């Protein structure tokens, strides 16, 4: 049912939703009701398929049970489909009316299928109308058009050519279907069934990747969502990725020219896992040259309750590290800073580059270190690391916590107290944390305790990418700047005091941009820690001193 209705397009764009529904659902009903009609007319449960489709051709004079109602219904459904078709034709030539800025470039197979699809329904209307004119029956629509045909000339002349044209266009469409984007009609049903059944993509190409690839209808909704078009890149978007996989002509330049931000995946009406699919293609394309990292040696782990893994990117934003240290010290946690001096990367950047086998080597090394420390919690301050630690590391009995959650828990349990201010903050959702891991609310709740978080239109799953994404290996720095400015200009429109993010990479990218000051969550919290809790140690010292005085009786 979902395959026919596509509620997701409706929510996004009602006109487009109506267009698809009238064509898909309308046609489906036309077939089903037509079949029922034939079954009743023939008094049989089994009727040949062609008889139902060309019912009006075979059936002429006979009146049968509910024939009036059926001819009304069939005419109504045909009108329903034709109205959708009208929208489709207008859309093809005036896409801006539909709120679409870009649509997909079609290949010739698509054009043949599209033309025959467009011809099917008008021809069906004309053919049925001539039948109606010949036999003087038909519903409100066909009898009307039939009368018009009767007015022009003898309907019997048009009778055979029109029915033939209709059946030819149907034939053309079904012949062109497997080679065109309309392959999504049969495949999508399978795909939705498999997806609901819980099948997921593996790290290599299999039949499920094919199912996803063939399910793409190339509607082009992902094109408008993709930020790369701002930078003038318009050949590597998800729809073209799927098309290239299908045609087996995917080049590295296109495959790696994607931010992997996941904005396209949010709005895909079919629910194709565009990002996961691209990752699989990257793994396949770089399989021959994975690194072994033989130089990695097992360092000695320090025993602690909590392990803190800052990650490569955080090391380029030292203020985040010092803020985390301050937070750990204030909360008096027993922390081992795992990569303070040196440690391998978490492996996520390698995953994004498709070097899955190589990433596993780093993962194994890091996992052993973390397990050796005997810690029960692993705190990370980088969403890129967080995603890979959560998804690809196997760490039994170790809870992987993102620093936003960790700090929030500390405040909640009273180990940390923060001052409030009336700062207006815009929170930028990092791709890997938001769309990647689905964490939207925790950072907002945490910031809400300190200041005011401004609500925006493009936030949460619709948030921009900062442009600095590690997912894209091909984009030039100049183009990255265009993407960054797109996000920054939008944020500046809300005139916040500061911009807050939860990712060192986003912070670094934005900080090089305009005047807006950028901070990490940890910095905001560390700056807002109550003086009381900061001077806890001092207090203890003073108390000891006072006790000493008391003992000495002064």
């Amino acid at each position: 049912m979902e395959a026919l209705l596509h509620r997701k397009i409706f929510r996004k764009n009602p006109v487009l939703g109506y267009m698809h529904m009238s064509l898909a659902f309308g046609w489906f009903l036309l077939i089903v009701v037509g079949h029922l009609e034939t079954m009743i007319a023939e008094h049989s449960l089994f009727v040949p398929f062609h008889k139902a489709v060309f019912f009006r051709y075979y059936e002429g004079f006979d009146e049968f049970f509910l024939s009036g109602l059926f001819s009304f219904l069939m005419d109504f459904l045909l009108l329903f489909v034709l109205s959708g078709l009208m929208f489709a034709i207008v859309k093809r030539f005036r896409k801006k009316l539909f709120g679409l800025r870009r649509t997909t470039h079609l290949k010739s197979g698509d054009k043949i299928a599209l033309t025959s699809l467009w011809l099917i329904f008008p021809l069906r209307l004309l053919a049925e109308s001539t039948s109606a004119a010949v036999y003087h029956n038909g519903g409100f629509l066909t009898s009307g058009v039939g009368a018009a045909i009767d007015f022009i000339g003898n309907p019997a002349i048009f009778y055979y050519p029109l029915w033939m044209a209709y059946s030819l266009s149907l034939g053309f469409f079904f012949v062109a279907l497997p080679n065109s984007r309309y392959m999504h009609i049969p495949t999508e049903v399978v795909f939705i069934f498999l997806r609901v059944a819980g099948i997921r993509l593996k790290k290599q190409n299999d039949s499920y990747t094919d199912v996803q690839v063939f399910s793409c209808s190339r509607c082009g909704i992902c094109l408008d969502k993709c930020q790369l078009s701002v930078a003038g890149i318009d050949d590597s978007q998800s729809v073209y990725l799927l098309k290239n996989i299908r045609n087996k002509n995917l080049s590295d330049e296109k495959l790696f020219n994607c931010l992997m931000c996941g904005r396209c995946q949010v709005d895909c009406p079919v629910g194709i896992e565009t990002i996961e699919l691209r990752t699989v293609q990257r793994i396949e394309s770089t399989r021959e040259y994975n690194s072994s990292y033989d130089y990695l040696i097992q360092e000695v782990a320090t025993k602690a309750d909590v392990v803190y893994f800052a990650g490569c990117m955080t090391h380029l934003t030292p203020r985040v590290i010092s803020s985390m240290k301050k937070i750990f010290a204030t909360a008096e946690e027993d922390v081992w800073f795992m990569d303070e001096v040196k440690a391998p990367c978490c492996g996520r950047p390698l995953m994004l580059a498709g070097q899955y086998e190589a990433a596993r080597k780093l993962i194994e090394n890091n996992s052993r270190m973390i397990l050796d420390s005997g810690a029960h919690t692993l705190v990370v301050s980088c969403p890129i690391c967080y995603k890979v630690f959560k998804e690809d590391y196997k760490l039994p009995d170790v809870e992987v916590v993102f620093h936003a959650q960790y700090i929030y828990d500390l405040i909640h349990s009273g180990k940390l107290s923060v001052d409030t201010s009336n700062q207006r903050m815009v929170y930028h959702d990092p791709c890997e944390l938001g769309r990647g891991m689905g964490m939207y609310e925790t950072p907002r709740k945490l910031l809400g305790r300190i200041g005011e978080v401004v609500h925006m239109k493009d936030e949460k799953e619709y948030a921009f990418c900062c442009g600095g994404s590690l997912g894209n290996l091909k984009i030039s720095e100049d183009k990255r700047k265009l993407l960054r400015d797109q996000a920054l200009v939008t944020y500046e429109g809300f005139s916040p005091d500061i911009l807050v993010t939860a990712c060192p990479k986003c912070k670094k990218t934005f900080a090089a941009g305009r005047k807006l000051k950028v901070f990490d969550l940890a910095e905001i919290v560390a700056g807002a820690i109550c003086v009381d809790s900061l001077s806890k140690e001092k207090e203890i010292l003073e108390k000891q001193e006072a006790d000493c005085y008391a003992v000495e009786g002064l």
Partner: protein
Amino acid sequence: MSQFDFLQPKSRQIEIEQFDDRILTYVLEREQSFLTCISCGGCTATCSAGNLTSFNVRKIGLSLRRGNINDLSDEVQKCMFCGKCTLVCPRDINIRNVVLLIKKGIAQLETEKTL
């Protein structure tokens, strides 16, 4: 006199006739920004892998330009793709892509012997 030669620098002479520029042209065709490299070494200073082993991004660039494919193929395997080098590069060179292209180029050389 051999005492003075403690650094034992290798010969830096380039034999024009034997200069192997296959990987270099392969990379430059696809990543022009590498042309602007000034070999400042910022990438090496920040490198995560360089912190763990004797990996040197700047030397990768040098070997690439000098056509030392043998040196390259061993060295380039050590990169972890973390992207810090790209972030600190003053010339905005897409170093991750350069390394990926070298890896790919060498893999293709090994399998097909042509590029």
